[in-house]
């Protein structure tokens, strides 16, 4: 296991070179991504942070083949994003939980499994396992609107974990939650990441969140979205919540804030 | 058995008693015919139905049939059970109408949908414009009933001797309140309720044979109805799917209808035909038909049927 793991880390999971993306809109072209270069390795936890509208979501969508770059190249596991998508390499978590109101929590988690043609017994087993993982066992039969926002968000993460995607892309998954709940989910996410060794791409607006979670923090500038800074975290993999009060943490947070502020025009 | 579909001109009522009697009493069956009677309605054009192949034989008024013939739909009269016209214009005395001369400036209710031709030729004979004004008459498209005269919206409405006239009476106006102008009396009568088929079909001997049987059985029905008016009315009532007809009204209608069919054995009287055509041709600037039709009737069927 560890040998294979080390082997895989050699080739980057995601590798973007000179990525550009321009949207054609009624008001003229919008240059969302400009000359983006980035490599993400197996097992990385990479956060993307930047002012609103800078292209974080767009970048994540390009990785997941939800958007085609207008220039540059990107490979995922050595192949194109489209091929990677067809091999179901992605678990994607959106900002809003986006659970289907007409399906129970269990049914929601089962949905991608049904689509991917897992057997019934395999489905059951997996649903049970991920529900355990996000501590929602017992809520399988409930409907989404019977759960709090935090629980819904956990269910939506469980849904992305239910099948064996080795890349997890999360677009501001905790944006709508209050700070306490958010702290708690952050902790759980870290544990989960440690346990599964997935590669995670994570968009956030919160500096502490980015610093707390990531092995690398990618700071982006306002439109046209460029990568202005990539900060390697010096924090250990094991991170209690208290770590946020250490000078090391504050130092990294400060660097991120400076990076952000440099690119921010204040007239949003 | 041979299938025959008959399209009526109007809803099921004693006006069509002969056919229902023939059906009910088995006269058609005796001839080896399997007859379907399709009731008509306010917006069913029998000519259109036969053109579309929805019926083998239709009942229509001659003006409308001749007009259709001019439009290129070759209808031929094969039998004429109704000898005289039942059409009249019924007016309220209190509207100031005593003679046709009083029509000027009045509002008259008229049936359209191909039934307007007799009225139009009468008016053109009188020399009245139908466009309103002091020198003409204002025409209303009369709906399904006689409301306009009851409510004073029209001075006169179109009625049939056997039907609408009695509705006015039933509604509470007495014959003394009314003046009636029968088309017969005004010399503008046209033939009503003849049997018409498509000219092309008559080239087929089998079809002709079928029609002979049909006309024979139908006339038998009519004569039976004339002799047993009350029973005939009850047969009609049994066949009314809408359940809206009343016994009293149908019996009275049968009595009046019998007067109109009495003079006919089923064969068209060429004199009546000529009179109808003359009246339709005389329509001034806008006659109903522009030239005398050819081959619009035949005795071929009745000759065989009635001998």
């Amino acid at each position, binding site marked *: 296991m560890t040998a294979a793991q080390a082997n895989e880390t050699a080739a980057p999971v995601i590798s973007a070179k000179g990525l550009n993306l321009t949207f054609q809109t009624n008001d003229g072209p919008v240059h969302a991504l400009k000359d983006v270069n980035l490599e993400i390795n197996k097992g990385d936890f990479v956060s993307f942070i930047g002012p609103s509208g800078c292209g974080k979501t767009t970048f994540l*969508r390009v990785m*997941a*083949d*939800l958007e085609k770059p207008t220039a540059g190249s990107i490979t995922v596991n050595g192949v194109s994003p489209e091929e990677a*998508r*067809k091999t*179901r390499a*992605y678990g*994607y978590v*959106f900002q*809003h939980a*986006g659970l*289907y*109101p*007409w*399906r*129970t929590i269990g049914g929601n988690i089962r*949905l*991608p499994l*049904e*689509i*991917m043609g897992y057997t019934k017994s395999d489905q059951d087993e997996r649903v049970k396992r991920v529900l355990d993982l996000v501590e929602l066992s017992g809520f399988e039969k409930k*409907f*989404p*609107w019977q759960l709090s926002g935090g629980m819904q968000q956990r269910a939506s993460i469980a849904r992305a974990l239910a*099948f064996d995607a080795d890349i997890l892309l999360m677009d501001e998954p905790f944006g709508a939650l209050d700070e306490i709940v958010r702290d708690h989910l952050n902790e759980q996410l870290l544990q989960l990441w440690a346990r599964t060794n997935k590669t995670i791409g994570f968009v956030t607006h919160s500096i502490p969140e980015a610093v707390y979670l990531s092995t690398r923090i990618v700071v982006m500038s306002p439109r046209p979205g460029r990568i202005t800074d990539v900060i390697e975290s010096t924090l250990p993999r094991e991170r209690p919540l208290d770590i946020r009060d250490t000078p090391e943490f504050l130092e990294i947070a400060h660097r991120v804030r400076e990076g952000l502020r440099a690119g921010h025009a204040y007239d949003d | 058995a041979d299938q025959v579909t008959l399209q*009526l001109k109007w*809803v*099921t009522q004693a006006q069509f008693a002969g056919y229902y009697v023939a059906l009910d009493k088995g006269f058609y069956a005796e001839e080896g015919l399997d007859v379907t009677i*399709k*009731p*008509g*309605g*306010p*917006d*069913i*054009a029998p000519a*259109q*139905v036969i*053109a*579309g*192949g*929805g019926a083998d034989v239709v009942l229509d008024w001659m003006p409308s049939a001749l007009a259709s013939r001019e439009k290129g739909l070759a209808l031929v009269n094969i039998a004429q059970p109704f000898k005289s016209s039942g059409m009249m214009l019924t007016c309220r005395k209190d509207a100031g109408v005593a003679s046709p001369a009083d029509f000027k400036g009045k509002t008259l209710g008229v049936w359209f949908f191909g039934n307007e031709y007799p009225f139009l030729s009468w008016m053109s004979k009188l020399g009245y414009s139908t466009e309103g004004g002091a020198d003409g008459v204002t025409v209303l498209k009369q*709906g*399904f*009933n*006689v*409301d306009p005269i*009851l409510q004073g919206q029209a001075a006169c409405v179109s009625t049939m001797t056997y039907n609408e006239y009695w*509705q006015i009476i039933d*509604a*509470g106006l*007495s014959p003394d309140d009314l003046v009636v102008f029968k088309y017969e009396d005004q010399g503008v009568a046209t033939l009503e309720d003849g049997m018409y088929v498509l000219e092309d079909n008559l080239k087929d001997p089998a079809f002709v044979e079928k029609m002979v049987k049909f006309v024979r059985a139908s006339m038998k029905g009519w004569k039976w109805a004339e002799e047993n008016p009350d029973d005939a009315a009850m047969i009609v009532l049994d066949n*009314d*799917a*809408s*359940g*809206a*007809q009343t016994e009293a*009204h149908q019996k009275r209608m049968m009595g009046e209808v019998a007067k109109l069919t009495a003079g006919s054995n089923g064969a068209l009287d060429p004199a009546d035909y000529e009179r109808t055509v003359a009246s339709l041709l005389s329509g001034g600037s806008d006659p109903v038909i522009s030239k005398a039709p050819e081959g619009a009737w035949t005795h071929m069927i009745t000759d065989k049927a009635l001998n």
Partner: protein
Amino acid sequence: MRKSFLPVLTVVAAIFVLWYAMAVVLNAAWAKDQAKRAGVELSFSELVADTWAQDKPKLPAPHQVAAEIWETTVEKKITSKRSLVFHSGITLSSTLLGFVLGTVLGIGLAVGIVYNRVMDMSVMPWVIASQTIPILAIAPMIIVVLNAVGISGLLPKAIISMYLSFFPVVVGMVKGLRSPDMMQLDQMRTWNATASQQFWKLRLPSSMPYLFASLKIAMAASLVGAIVGELPTGAVAGLGARLLAGSYYGQTIQIWSALIMAAALAACLVAIIGLIQRVTLKRMGMA
């Protein structure tokens, strides 16, 4: 529900009061006319009594209509041609057939519009234009023409119903099938779902609330179609035929009872859809 009980009752009561009052106003002229002809003078109470008891009133009083409905539903055998239940049944059957046809056509078109770009761009304007054709006015012609091509009986009426009822279904279903947001569609994409999986697992379930809202309108429209389709078919049978026959013979009481019956039928049908809607959406967790 309970909160609106009293207000609704009040409004309905007000309608009845107004109805009786209108009956007096509208029928008084005839009553006076008759009295004058008979040479008698009517007192006010006699006048009121007369206006509420005429044979062919301009506006029949509610109790007259109620009596007629009672007579033609309860006291007649259902198979009798004079039974309103019989006629309602006939209208109901073509309404339902037309409704089913319209729903199928509507959903089919909506699916086409949502999944096919050419249809999306070309069909919708014509669907809207189609509804500006006064189908009701040409219903008789349609029936005759359909007869000509061998379609007769229930179907021609049902086709008119269908023509009226498919429209709300198309409009509602296009909206409904498009109601999943971009995110949900993208999610399906990340799972590499096929078009049919996308349809059955996402688009169709999301469209349910829209579907039911449209079905209610479609049902009402379908009934209108069936009634109007019956008007010209020779006053054979059905509520439309009753309406026409009543009108033909000036039987206002009969017209009103057919009308009320049609209204009750519409209300029942719409209520049934409402019920199905409530049950389905509840089971889907969407109510």
